[in-house]
């Protein structure tokens, strides 16, 4: 057999076999991967909206809003995702917000790659808890009304200003005291 033809045929067969294996493993794992991602999202929404046991996803003006509901279907607050640029890369944050009161319910860090022991401490309760009860009127400036982690001003600022920026957009959609 012509050696070039042989090269092409062998490479083609190997690629086709590889494609088949990949398609099969994708089919097997994809439902689980989707389910994992959904569960993780739901968990973070339920954490930032105290009292919520289920969530509902809605789309408004390019922003995805998650509404937290309790067992009776009462609205407990809304949650939205935001991202700030930290010291080593993006910091993804889930923010819980009560439009009736115009106050934050809590935040959760979804993903980040900050320095361990310094910026990574934004995941600690002590840092996250200070956002509970903060009003939309607040400035969200690190070292002023937001306590920055010592040695990690950039990470702390990134979280605070990311929340402030998206909060302003969300407030435009759901005015304080209004229905949602």
């Amino acid at each position: 057999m012509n050696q070039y033809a042989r090269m092409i045929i062998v490479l083609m067969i190997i690629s086709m076999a590889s494609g088949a294996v990949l398609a099969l493993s994708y089919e097997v794992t994809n439902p689980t991967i989707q389910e994992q991602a959904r569960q993780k999202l739901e968990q973070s929404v339920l954490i930032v909206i105290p009292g919520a046991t289920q969530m509902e996803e809605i789309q408004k003006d390019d922003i995805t809003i998650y509404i937290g509901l309790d067992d009776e279907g009462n609205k407990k607050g809304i949650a939205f995702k935001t991202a700030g640029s930290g010291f080593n890369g993006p910091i993804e944050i889930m923010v819980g917000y009560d439009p009736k009161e115009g106050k934050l319910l809590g935040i959760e860090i979804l993903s980040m790659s900050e320095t361990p022991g310094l910026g990574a401490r934004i995941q600690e309760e002590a840092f996250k808890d200070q956002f509970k009860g903060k009003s939309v009127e607040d400035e969200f400036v690190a070292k002023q009304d937001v306590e920055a982690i010592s040695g990690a001003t950039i990470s702390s600022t990134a979280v605070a200003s990311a929340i402030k920026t998206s909060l302003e957009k969300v407030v435009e959609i759901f005015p304080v005291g209004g229905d949602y």
Partner: protein
Amino acid sequence: MQLFKDFINGLWNENPIFRMVIGICSALAVTTAASNGIAMGLALTFVLTCSSILVSLLRSVIPAKVRIPCYIIVVATFTTVVDLFMKAYFPALYEVLGIFIPLIVVNCIVLARAEAFASKVGLARAIADALGMGLGYTWAITLISMIRELMGAGTLFGYRVMGEGFTPWVSAILPPGAFIVMGILVGLINVINRKTAKRTQCH
């Protein structure tokens, strides 16, 4: 006997990390916690063993001129399989190891063993070599990550072992810590090897 020799080779004499110093990109990057070290090592061992088996079986079929693309397709396929399964069933681990799982494709240990060993020997020897190299990589990066976790966080496999008064040396889990710990270990292993080599010469 030959099989045992092939297996032991990767564990010590030609340990990929400490002796050949190949594939250390991932070894330096993921070794911030002992559990990451083990997981990364086992993922690489799986890919290495599967691809060595296929390369050894196909060694008479693959034309010499296109062998590298063939090996890469084989390695990339197994890596993607590991990537997908880890994402589905061990999401927490996947998040930590992140980009380094897909990067097993370009980890030079895998291609080096396919090219230098598996493509020249029979199935049994290829498997013995792949397991030895894979486990050699695993124990090496697990040791590095245990030292780094202990010094940088005061824990081992997530359990606190250092007392309350321990101040973590944060640099150990930062990139410079990886170089320092690995450098010291490579040096120590060189000393051990030199000592044992001298002893055999005396006899």
